[in-house]
C-alpha cells in the first residue's frame, strides 16, 4: 500500500520545482485500499494471514495502522524519506528485497497510485519475483485441485469488456477500484492493532538490491491551459441565467 496526498488536499510545488511540499494531509492510495479489502475477504474465505507492506516516511505508518485495525495480521514498513522519490522499478526492488524470506501465495497491489500514476509497481514486482501476474482485477476465485488448482481472476479490459484468466500460484495481482465494498475499522480492531507485529526495514537493508532511478523528473509544474476557459461568476441564480444564455447562443445545444 502507498500513502498519497488526500484527494482534495491543496498541493504546492517545492522551491526546486521537482516535487510537492510536504505537510499536506495524506491517505491510503484508493486502489490500494481495495487491494487490502480483497486480501481480507480472501482470508475470511480461505483462512491464512494478511500482511501489509508500505515504503514511505514515518508518516506512512498511518496507512499500516489503519490496515491492521481493519484486520491485517502484521505489517512491514520500509521506512525512509527516500522512498518517496523512487521510480516504480526501485520501489518494486526494495519491496522484493524486504519480503525475500516470506512465503506469500498472493501479492496484491492497487492498479496504480494517485500521485505518480505509473501503474507499474505490481507488474515489476512480479517479474523480479519470477511470478505470473494479472492486472486490473475485478474478481478472484480459488480453483479446485480437479480444475487444475491456482486461481481464476476476472480482468477488466477497456470499453466494458472483461476476461477470465486461470493462473498458478504464487502470483501478483493488481486490483481495480470498486472490486468490493471497503470496510471501516471497528473500535476493537483499532485497539487490537496496537499489539500486532510490525517489522521496520531501513533503507540500508534493501539498498544493495536497488539502483539509480532510471526516470528523472526534470521539472514539475502546473498544467498549461490549452483551452480558453470562460468562468461564469456571481450568485447561483445569475450563474444559471448566464449558463443558459451560453447553452443557447454559443454552444447552441438548446
Amino acid at each position, binding site marked *: 500500500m502507498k500513502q498519497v496526498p488526500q484527494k482534495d488536499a491543496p498541493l504546492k510545488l517545492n522551491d526546486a520545482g521537482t516535487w510537492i511540499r510536504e505537510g499536506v494531509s495524506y491517505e491510503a492510495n484508493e486502489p490500494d485500499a481495495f487491494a487490502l479489502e480483497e486480501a481480507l475477504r480472501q482470508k475470511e474465505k480461505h483462512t491464512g494471514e494478511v500482511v501489509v507492506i508500505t515504503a514511505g516516511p514515518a508518516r506512512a505508518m498511518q496507512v499500516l495502522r489503519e490496515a491492521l485495525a481493519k484486520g491485517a495480521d502484521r505489517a512491514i514498513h520500509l521506512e525512509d524519506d527516500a522512498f518517496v522519490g523512487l521510480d516504480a*522499478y526501485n520501489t518494486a526492488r526494495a519491496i522484493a528485497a524486504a519480503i525475500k524470506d516470506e512465503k506469500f501465495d498472493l501479492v496484491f497491489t492497487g492498479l496504480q497510485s494517485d500521485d505518480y500514476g505509473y501503474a507499474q509497481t505490481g507488474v515489476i514486482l512480479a517479474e523480479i519475483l519470477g511470478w505470473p501476474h494479472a492486472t486490473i482485477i475485478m474478481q478472484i476465485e480459488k480453483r479446485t485441485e480437479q480444475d487444475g488448482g491456482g486461481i481464476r481472476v476476472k480482468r477488466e479490459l477497456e470499453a*466494458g469488456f472483461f476476461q477470465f484468466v486461470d493462473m498458478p500460484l504464487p502470483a501478483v495481482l493488481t486490483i481495480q477500484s470498486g472490486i468490493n465494498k471497503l470496510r471501516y475499522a471497528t473500535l476493537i480492531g483499532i485497539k487490537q492493532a496496537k499489539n500486532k507485529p510490525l517489522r521496520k526495514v531501513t533503507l540500508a537493508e534493501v539498498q544493495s538490491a536497488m539502483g539509480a532511478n532510471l526516470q528523472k523528473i526534470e521539472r*514539475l*509544474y502546473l498544467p498549461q491551459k490549452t483551452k480558453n476557459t470562460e468562468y461564469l461568476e456571481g450568485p447561483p441564480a445569475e450563474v444559471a441565467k448566464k449558463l443558459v444564455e451560453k447553452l443557447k447562443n454559443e*454552444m447552441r445545444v438548446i
Partner: protein
Amino acid sequence: MADTILVVVEQRESKLNRISWETITAGQAIAAQTGWTLEAAVVGSGVGPIASEVAEKKVAKVYDVESARLEPYTPDAFVHALREFLAKHPAKLVLMPHTYQVRDFVPKLATALETTAISDVIGARYEGGKLLFTRQMFQGKFVADVSFAGSGSCFVTFQNGSFRADKVEAGAAAAPVETVNVDIPDGVVRNHPQEVFKEAKQAVDLTQAEIIVSVGRGIKEQKNIELAKQLADALGGELAASRPICDNGWLPMDRQVGSSGQTVAPKLYLALGISGAIQHMVGMKGSKSIVAINKDSEAPIFEIADYAVVGNLFDVVPPLIEELKKAKG
C-alpha cells in the same frame, strides 16, 4: 545502440487497434525532431495484413513478429517475443499506446531488460539533445517533464488522445515488411486466458448522445442523483457518471464514462462535481463543449472546460433547471 525508434502496434484478435495510429504520429514527430529512424512492429499470430497496413505509413520498416503462442494475448508470450526481437533489433526508443494490454506487459518487459517504461505520456519534445516526456502527476493537478536516465532501450507509452491519429503521415512508397518468427518454448506461458466478453447488455449507448450530464463524487449521496437526472431531462440529454459513482452502484456500469467505460464526444458534456481524474478525462476530452461545475477551483476538469462554474453544484443546479425550463418554454 542504433538510433532507432520502434513503435509496437497493438492488435487484438488480428484487428489493428486504431489508437496505434496516434503512437505512429508520435513516433513520426519524434523522428522528425531527432533524425532517428522510425520502424514499427506488429506482434501476434497471422498478423501480416496488419503489418502491410502499417507499411503504408511513413516508416522505414515494419516487422511482423509471429508465433502461434502469441494468440490469445498473454504477458508471458508478449514479453518473451519482444525480448527476443529487441535482442536482434535494438531500439533506443520503444513506443506503445497506453492501453490496458500494454499496461499489462510493458513493465514486465522493461524490467526483464533492466530498463524502465515512462508511462501514460501526453507529450514529447527534443531539447538540447535530450528527450523530455510530459506526463500527468497527482491525478492531473501537475505535469512533469521526465527524462530517461538509463542506457538501454527507453519504453514510452502514450495516453489515448495525446497525438492525432488523423495526422499520421503516409509513406511515399510502401515500407518493407520483414517477418520475424519467434520461438516461445513450452512452459513460458503460465496464464490461460478465456474468451473476452461483455458483461451486461449495453442498455444505453452514450456515444450517440448529443448532450451528456455526468456526475462525480461531488454528488455526495445516491439520493442526489435525482437532481442530476432532472438537469439531464431539462436539457434533453443522457445521464452519465465517473467511475466511483458506478462502483457505488448509484448508476449502472453502462453509464460510466472513462477508460474503463465509454468514450464519448457529445456536443455538450456537463460535468457535475467531477474533479477530472485522468481515467475519466480520456473518455470525454473530445467533447465539443465542456461545462464544469465544481466547488474546487483547482479541479483538473477546469483545464479542459470551455465554461467553468466554481461553486457548489447543489446551489447552482436547481436554478439552472428552472432557467432551462423557462428557456424551453
